[in-house]
């Protein structure tokens, strides 16, 4: 009887996770629908201005969000995969013992500290390098997000490269290919699904990051023309405006509506990542 009771208690805790994801989804959708009952969804997606009280359009925020996140992936993906390849295929064990804690330390640094360095270090550097007044822009955010996404990308890529069976490498070497040809033409292509999963998880992290972009990208809510423009992402907009809006106003609901879009984007990227990770697992078997 006691046994049965506790089993139900544990089962209840399991159910809680489903309930939690469900309630987050429901909360976002409920408030988003309240918003769309006041504002036409077509204007919301196709307008060009986010200017609370007059015009609610997610478009400039979406462009900003993706600009910064994709910029960060352009930096972090090659760097992360090459570092993972170095760790798993080249580095001797002793060097690995040093490098792994380095990557763990990088992962442990709070995002607000990275954003702080964007203001005091990277911002002035960018403004000097390009001769512009303000170094708080999309480029700044992309570099910082790349640094934050690197540990995720490196760790998962390394697992993916490690899970390629040794017989592949041996077959390639036996055919006369050298170590490097084997790495770039056999091992990395074979690990590709896992590498894509790593990139997806890194991208999901970059899209959802708040403090770094809030501090380092300048927060101008206009459609950016390039990486040297100030941008304002979805997450930063919520962080800036939610503290000041009265409850249950159109503006309040609008912030939940953009959060709902962000939630759906993260969810889809997670699913894509999982799909590719599963393909790697099948290849294992």
């Amino acid at each position, binding site marked *: 009887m006691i046994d049965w009771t506790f089993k139900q208690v*544990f089962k209840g805790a399991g159910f809680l996770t489903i309930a939690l*994801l469900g309630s987050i989804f429901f909360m976002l959708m409920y408030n988003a629908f309240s918003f769309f009952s006041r504002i036409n969804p077509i204007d919301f997606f196709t307008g060009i201005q986010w200017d609370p009280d007059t015009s609610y359009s997610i478009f400039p925020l979406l462009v900003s969000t993706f600009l910064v996140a994709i910029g960060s992936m352009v930096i972090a993906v090659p760097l992360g995969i090459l570092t993972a390849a170095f760790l798993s295929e080249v580095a001797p064990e002793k060097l690995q013992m040093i*490098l792994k804690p380095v990557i763990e*330390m*990088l992962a442990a*640094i709070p995002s607000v500290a990275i954003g702080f360095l964007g203001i005091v270090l990277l911002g002035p550097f960018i403004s000097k390098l390009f001769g512009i007044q303000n170094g708080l822009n999309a480029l700044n955010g992309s570099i910082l997000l790349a640094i934050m996404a*690197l540990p995720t990308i490196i760790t998962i890529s390394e697992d993916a490269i490690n899970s390629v069976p040794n017989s592949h490498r041996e077959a390639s070497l036996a055919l006369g290919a050298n170590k490097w040809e084997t790495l770039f033409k056999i091992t990395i292509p074979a690990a590709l699904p896992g590498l894509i999963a790593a990139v997806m*998880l890194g991208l*999901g992290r970059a899209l959802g990051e708040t403090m770094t972009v809030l501090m380092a990208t300048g927060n101008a809510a206009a459609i950016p023309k390039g990486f040297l423009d100030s941008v304002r992402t979805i997450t930063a907009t919520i962080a800036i405006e*939610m503290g000041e809006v009265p409850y249950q106003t159109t503006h309040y609901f609008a912030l939940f509506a953009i959060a709902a879009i962000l939630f759906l984007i993260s969810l889809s990227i997670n699913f894509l990542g999982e799909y590719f990770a599963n393909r790697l697992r099948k290849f294992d078997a």
Partner: protein
Amino acid sequence: MKKKLLHAFDWLLLLGSTLLVCTFLGIILWDIFSKGLPAISWDFLLQYPTDGMTQGGILPAVVGTVLLTFITTLFAVPFGVACAVYLNEYAKHSLFTNIIRASIRNLAGVPSIIYGLFGLALFVQAMKLGTSVLSAGLTLGLLSLPYIIITTEEALKRIPNSMREATLALGVTQFETIKDVILPKALPGILTGVILTLSRAAGETAPILFTGVAFYINGVSTSINQEFMALPYHLYMLSTQHYAIEQVRPLAYGTAVVLITLVFLLNIVAFIIRSKYRTQD
């Protein structure tokens, strides 16, 4: 010859990438610690901020972060461990467990600011807890839940099945097996995961923005129904919203040093527990 050059280039590419990643960490730590350490003193850690935050210390922010993390632990650890126990010890592979696992993976990917909105809607407004350290701690607890479940389940998986079978064969019930054999044996692994999760929670800012953090409170937060100061938010405000940003820059650097040191200390504790545990096996 050409081939050799090409290989040297490949090698440099891999080594260079790795070195660049290390350089990033080096620059971050060098800049923060070289400029922040001079600001650190007992007074800085143990005094209240004075003169509009331009002087004095960060005691309320340190206390606030510790209190916040404590509430997060109290809430997230029991639920997280219970869920992991259910998944690893009780549940068979079924549609229900597949849905739970998918939920956990997706919860881990939900942006932290969305947890903040959820905490605002659920704890602050619906449950009428107001903006308080309790609301913020519960919000961070929800955020931490998936990580605690994932790491606890990994710790449980490392326990050999023979131990479960041995105790069950002695006629001990499954609950007693879990309580007296499995959990004590998995404790170091669970603890490692919990500490790492908390180090992440302590550095989070976005989820507490709307749920209770304040730039300045009078005195130290003692009641869980009050607003509170926290280290990451303090750093954010000092570096972006203060009226004398240049003047308080040393204080901002000092706060960054304290925050990063706190997070690293937690990581080191987790690392020590983990390495002791590994050698035991």
